[in-house]
């Protein structure tokens, strides 16, 4: 084992543990913190693979923005705590499917790449990533930017108060609870 591999195993161990605790923990806030662990370990793996820019993007967007967003929505929805309220009745089956897929994936990966395959990460400079995006992937980049805009507008439209329903009285059955809440 090279030093890179030793570092990787430690990081991956921590990340896997975080991932598993994320899906099993009884407390939603703890789950969010375990998500941070898992995401940070992925960022560290990017660093090991010498994908520096990607690693910082991961930290900024995932750990910085998405987790905060998730925590906010946990706060807003007053998520309860406890196994019974957080997990449904099909835990056993879910476990079976997950383990089955894990086994299948490990088998496939071992089968296909077990023998060959060492990789020596070459440091990639951020400028290379930029050149690649703006030379080879300009169109996907533009499409993604439109997607982001659409998501932004969509999120605002979906989540804002439904004033129209209040004015007209239509949608009363769906908006009723929200309406009384706001009124009170």
């Amino acid at each position, binding site marked *: 084992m*090279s030093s890179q591999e030793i570092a990787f195993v430690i990081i991956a161990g921590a990340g896997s543990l975080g991932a598993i605790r*994320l899906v099993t923990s009884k407390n939603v806030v703890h789950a969010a913190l375990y998500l941070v662990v898992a995401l940070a370990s992925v960022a560290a793996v990017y660093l090991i693979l010498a994908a520096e820019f990607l690693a910082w993007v991961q930290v900024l967007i995932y750990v910085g923005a998405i987790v905060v967003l998730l925590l906010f929505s946990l706060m807003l929805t007053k998520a309860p705590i406890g196994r019974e309220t957080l997990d449904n009745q099909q835990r056993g089956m879910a476990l079976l499917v997950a383990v089955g897929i894990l086994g299948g*994936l490990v088998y496939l990966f071992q089968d296909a790449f077990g023998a060959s395959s060492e*990789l020596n990460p070459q440091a990639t400079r951020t400028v290379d990533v930029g050149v690649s995006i703006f030379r080879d992937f300009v169109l996907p980049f533009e499409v993604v930017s439109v997607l982001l805009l659409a998501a932004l507008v969509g999120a605002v439209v979906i*989540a804002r108060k439904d004033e129209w329903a209040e004015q007209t009285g239509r949608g009363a059955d769906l908006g009723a609870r929200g309406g009384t809440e706001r009124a009170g």
Partner: protein
Amino acid sequence: MIRLPFLLFFSAVLFSAGIYGVLARRNAVLVLMSIELMLNAVNVNLVAFGSFLQDAALTGQVFALFVITVAAAEVGIGLAIVILIYRNRETINVDEVNLLRW
């Protein structure tokens, strides 16, 4: 030097944990978190294979960036929907949201 299967196994673990979370969690926010986990597993694979194939265009990394962007959009919309559902039904348990069932 690092062997490719190490990375792949790590991503497989993340992915399976995500699948378990999606299937076993009732809370919609936790389901979204699990989906993030699965997307990250895919990203790890993308970057690992990109590095393995020594791709000059850095396709793996660029696509990982795109996936992150799409994931951010997905979380934004997903959480907006969750909040809306909570506002209307005072629950975000996915097994209780079944109005579309006929």
